[in-house]
């Protein structure tokens, strides 16, 4: 398959591995922020191709995993409001809330529909004018522009029954929060699709102020290995900086149109992250002039106080402090078919990835 096979070539991967082994001397810890990266590392067995002094840890970049329990519980409360259709990307329906999940609420009679594009939610709203259609907006700068575009489209077409419950988040604040918290990280493998939208300047502080290496990476094994090599070269030579490995997609300035749409629809707010607490200016709220589409403004529901599942260490895993095998629930009480924490639900969650590739 074009654009995939050439980035999975064994010879190329092994030659990067050899080069890495020849130049790597220091003990370094690199965090792959994105769940897609975590999955690629395990899927292609990249750990075994790295020198033992390079450690990769997983970060908080899986949207389903970092969405707060309160957000899940709010979605659940909306699903019980008569006349509401919940539309969501698939993974979210299986995330356990404090007492139930959207999947179970659907069996109880709630109208919960899996969609593949937010524009499908708009279509559902148009076809069901007597219902209120709520889209559960999750994801980073990658999916947020699509949600923003849908809101603008709803405004343009005057669709009054379309609402968004936004848990959209932005990437840099959480990365800085981890560094400030003292998590030992020498460099970040940054998600390529985020920078396709934002450009690369969002990470400049991490290099100039925090002295960390950042390489914006693609998602195939050759991409990942090359990114580790670039970070290692930076760190070995003591010149941390922001570099782009994913040059076939990412431009320095990003996608200006998407940025404008984001800016037009959303503003930053302090936001809750699962296991990480509230991080200043890390979430995206719908601007006041578009509040007609903001589910939080429209629906008045009682959301019981959220409780995190007992014994689940998703929070520490998302901070890179622990790995799933440190959790006593992992692969015993918590499995993909019966998940306790969000990180076991999403195909790109760290726990689900470890479970799948636990050979």
């Amino acid at each position, binding site marked *: 398959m074009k654009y995939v096979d050439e980035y999975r070539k064994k010879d190329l991967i092994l030659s990067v591995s050899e080069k890495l082994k020849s130049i790597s001397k220091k003990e370094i810890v690199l965090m792959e922020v994105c769940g897609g990266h975590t999955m690629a590392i*395990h899927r292609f067995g990249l750990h075994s191709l790295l020198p033992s002094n390079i450690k990769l840890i997983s970060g908080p970049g899986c949207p389903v995993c970092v969405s707060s329990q309160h957000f899940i519980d709010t979605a659940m409360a909306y699903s019980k409001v008569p006349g509401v259709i919940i539309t969501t990307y698939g993974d979210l329906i299986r995330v356990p809330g404090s007492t139930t999940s959207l999947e179970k609420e659907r*069996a109880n009679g709630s109208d919960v529909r899996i969609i593949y594009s937010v524009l499908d939610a708009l279509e559902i709203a148009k076809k069901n004018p007597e219902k209120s259609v709520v889209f559960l907006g*999750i994801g980073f700068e990658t999916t947020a522009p699509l949600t923003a575009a849908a809101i603008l489209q709803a405004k343009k077409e005057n669709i009054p029954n379309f609402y968004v419950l936004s848990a959209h988040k932005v990437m840099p604040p959480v990365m800085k929060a981890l560094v400030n918290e003292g998590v030992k990280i020498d460099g970040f493998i940054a998600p390529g699709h985020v920078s396709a939208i934002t450009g690369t300047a969002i990470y400049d502080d991490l290099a100039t102020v925090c002295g960390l290496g950042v390489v914006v990476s693609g998602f195939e094994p050759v991409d990942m290995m090359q990114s580790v090599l670039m970070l290692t070269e930076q760190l070995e030579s003591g010149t941390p900086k922001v570099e782009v490995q994913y040059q076939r997609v990412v431009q320095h300035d990003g996608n200006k149109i998407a940025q404008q749409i984001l800016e037009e629809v959303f503003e930053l707010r302090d936001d809750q992250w699962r296991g990480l607490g509230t991080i200043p200016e890390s979430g995206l709220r719908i601007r006041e002039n578009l509040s007609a589409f903001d589910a939080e403004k429209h629906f008045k529901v009682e959301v019981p106080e959220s409780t995190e599942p007992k014994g689940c260490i998703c929070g520490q895993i998302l901070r890179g402090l622990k790995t799933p095998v440190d959790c006593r629930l992992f692969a015993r009480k918590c499995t*993909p*078919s019966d998940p306790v924490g969000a990180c076991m639900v999403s195909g790109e969650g760290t726990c689900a990835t470890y479970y799948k590739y636990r050979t």
Partner: protein
Amino acid sequence: MKNREDKILLGHGSGGRMMHDLIEGLFLKHFSNNILNEQTDAAILNVGSSEIAFTTDSFVIDPLFFPGGNIGKLAVCGTVNDLAVSGAEPLYISVSMIIEEGFPMKDLEIIVESLAAEAKKAGVLIVTGDTKVVNKGKCDKLFINTAGIGRVRKEDRQVSKALDIQVGDVIIVNGTIGDHGMAVMNARESFNFKTTVESDCASLNQLIREVLDQSSVKFMRDPTRGGVATVLNELVEKRQLGIEIDESNLPVISGVKAMCELLGFDPLHIANEGKVLIVASEKDGNKILEILKNNELGRQSAIIGRVVNDHPGKVVLKNETGGRRIVDSLSGDQLPRIC
């Protein structure tokens, strides 16, 4: 029962782990008998001096028409294949329809014609049936149930039981995997992928007969819902053997591969309707491969893996870059990833 849910979820019908738990924990608990407990695709029954295979299957596919077939063709293939992989020669089938009030007669005619055409092609007679019409909204357009019986030859009656699986045995599939599930998904959802992926929906009884007549098969099953992964997991479950699959040998057409990459699916979990998985010794395996490749329905057959001593009870996939991962049964419904 094992399952802790207090209501039926969609995942209970997806052919994966949840359905397995439902069957074990509820149905088998109450229905248990020596024949059912074998849990093969078709029950093998002693009637007088001969043995017959008996099976049933319900079809609730949406949409009713999809690239490569429709619910009528599928309803014949599904039951014929369940009999065939049990080592039986399919003879007679029943067709029961539950039709929603208001269903277009024109569509029903097309579906019935397909049922008849596929039955003729497979060499089975439709000998009995039932018709129910329900109020609008009480079922989704049309559901079909077919049941079938077939004659079992003594020498073939063990093929669904996997009695003699050994280390070194090979696992063969008669062509590309994931075609049916992805064709239906593309027809159902609003992806508008410009792809030519078609369902592989086909009756395999004649192909399987050739294989059984000319070689020695240790086990065979059709990897429908839950895909290849689920069949192989069920095969090694509770055994002191594992299975290793080689990713580079998996036949997957590029359209299916691309859809799976985009949606975050694993082709090993996607449903097939014209595929059979065969386990045989290496020597017989090569012969079987040759037989399959000479048949229209087996041109792209391949040996996709082997039975191994390592990781007992588990199916492991080895990829081209040296990575290895566990291939689990499907848990609940496959969910598309979101970023």
